[in-house]
């Protein structure tokens, strides 16, 4: 039994039933799932969680889906690794990497889609839908396949074939929209109002967003039931960033971890940094931008939750960073070379943002820090293919090898 009670407007507080709604009818503010906190408090415990499955569903008491409707791909419970070599490179004392590249479709989107798909099934939907250029479509297609639901994925017409493959293999209906990115936005927003489809990040967005909290739950549990003092997370819409903080707060509220302050630091690419720009200008008015960065998975020019991300930074004495594309590549390489984790460009943004946060004194290198790596590197291999080690060509003889090896350049690190 879920403890979700209703949807509540984040602006005016008005309550709505647990239906496929995402915007308040009165003020048009975003809706968020509300819970019976007393009910959760009476049931939840560390022992109960620890006896659950090794997936996000160990936290089912905190999620808006009933057990009978779960769409289960074994999402979550991804590794939290102590990144000592990277910490040393960056001059930090205690750094952890939450490696969400290990999810079934290789990104954190599996967390949000798992919750959205489960709730959609509970609400009677037969079709999952989304508009996506990659990770989200992969995850929606995979979850629909697992659940025996239909999937409809909308993509911009000029999306590279390689990015379509990660969805196409699950056999969804793929609609290629002949228009701009904004045209796809508008079309899907209209369709979400007119069709009996669960658009995971539109009409069922309140449930979808809740899945991100499991990142914080897992980190707290994996750290031995404590929160880190600092968090660095990438920001696209800003939803992931705010929900990670909310997840830690909830664990504190239920007495599962101590109430320690957590500094939240966001990371964006300079070519799409509307939230960081607002932070630097000390305003909560976010000016939409046209994205121009290799970090495509963070390229949301008009972030729905940007305002709330800024509020989270302010409340937590946090900060915000924006890094260049070369810094993104360097971040990817640094993480791979130091810790053996191959991240997509969003991970490069996080690591480069972590370094910038230290350099700008937004982050204390002596405090425990968790950096969130949200997607696997093969998704954006083209971003780094020209920046990695090249093979040494040799003939199949010992002499050829010895000659070539003697002349080969020494392995070069990425500096810093």
């Amino acid at each position, binding site marked *: 039994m879920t403890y979700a009670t209703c949807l509540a407007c984040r602006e005016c507080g008005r309550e709505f039933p647990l239906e496929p709604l995402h915007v308040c009818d009165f003020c048009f503010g975003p809706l968020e799932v509300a819970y019976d906190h007393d009910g959760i408090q009476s049931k939840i415990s560390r022992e109960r969680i620890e006896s659950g499955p090794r997936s996000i569903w160990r936290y089912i008491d905190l999620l808006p889906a009933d057990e009978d409707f779960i769409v289960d791909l074994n999402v979550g419970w991804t590794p939290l690794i102590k990144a000592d070599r990277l910490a040393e490179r960056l001059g930090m004392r205690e750094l952890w990497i939450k490696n969400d590249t290990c999810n079934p479709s290789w990104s954190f989107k599996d967390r949000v889609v798992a919750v959205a798909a489960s709730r959609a099934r509970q609400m009677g939907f037969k079709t999952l839908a989304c*508009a996506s250029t990659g990770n989200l479509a992969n995850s929606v297609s995979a979850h629909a396949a697992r659940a025996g639901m239909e999937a409809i994925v*909308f993509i911009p017409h000029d999306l590279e074939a390689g990015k379509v493959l990660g969805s196409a293999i699950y056999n969804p209906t793929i609609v290629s929209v002949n228009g701009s990115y904004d045209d796809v936005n508008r079309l899907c*927003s209209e369709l979400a109002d007119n069709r009996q489809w669960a*658009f995971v990040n539109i009409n069922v967005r309140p449930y979808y967003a809740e899945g991100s909290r499991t990142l914080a739950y897992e980190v707290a549990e994996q750290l031995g039931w404590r929160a880190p003092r600092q968090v660095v997370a990438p920001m696209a*819409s800003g939803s992931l960033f705010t929900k990670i903080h909310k997840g830690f707060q909830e664990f504190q509220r239920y007495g599962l971890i101590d109430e320690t302050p957590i500094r939240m630091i966001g990371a964006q690419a300079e070519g799409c940094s509307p939230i960081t720009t607002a932070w630097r200008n000390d305003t909560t008015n976010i000016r939409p931008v046209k994205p121009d960065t290799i970090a495509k998975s963070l390229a949301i020019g008009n972030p729905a939750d940007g305002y709330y991300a800024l509020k989270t930074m302010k409340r937590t004495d946090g900060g915000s960073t924006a890094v260049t594309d070369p810094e993104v590549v360097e971040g990817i390489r640094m993480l791979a070379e130091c810790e053996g984790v191959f991240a997509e460009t969003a991970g490069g943004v996080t690591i480069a943002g972590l370094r910038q946060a230290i350099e700008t004194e937004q982050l204390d290198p002596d405090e425990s820090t968790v950096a969130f790596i949200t997607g696997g590197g093969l998704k954006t291999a083209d971003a780094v293919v020209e920046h990695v080690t090249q093979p040494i060509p040799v003939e199949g003889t010992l002499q050829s090898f010895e000659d070539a090896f003697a002349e080969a350049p020494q392995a070069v690190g990425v500096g810093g």
Partner: protein
Amino acid sequence: MATRRVRFTFEGDAVKEPVIYLVGHEFDVVTNIRMADVEHDFGWVVLELDGDHDEIDRALSWVEAKGVRIDPVAGDVVES
């Protein structure tokens, strides 16, 4: 009849123009402002438009031609 919920973002000189008044004047569309925040050189307005589907499309094209950015109220929905 159709209803559309959108967000207008104004920058620079577009802030000074009575765009929303003119939408109601030039097109058979009813505008209903729900939230707004307008500064001297930047502002956004979230509003509901009621009217014939094609008429709303025409009105929005006209607004866009005035240099106003138009987005769904939920922000960008195309994610990676």
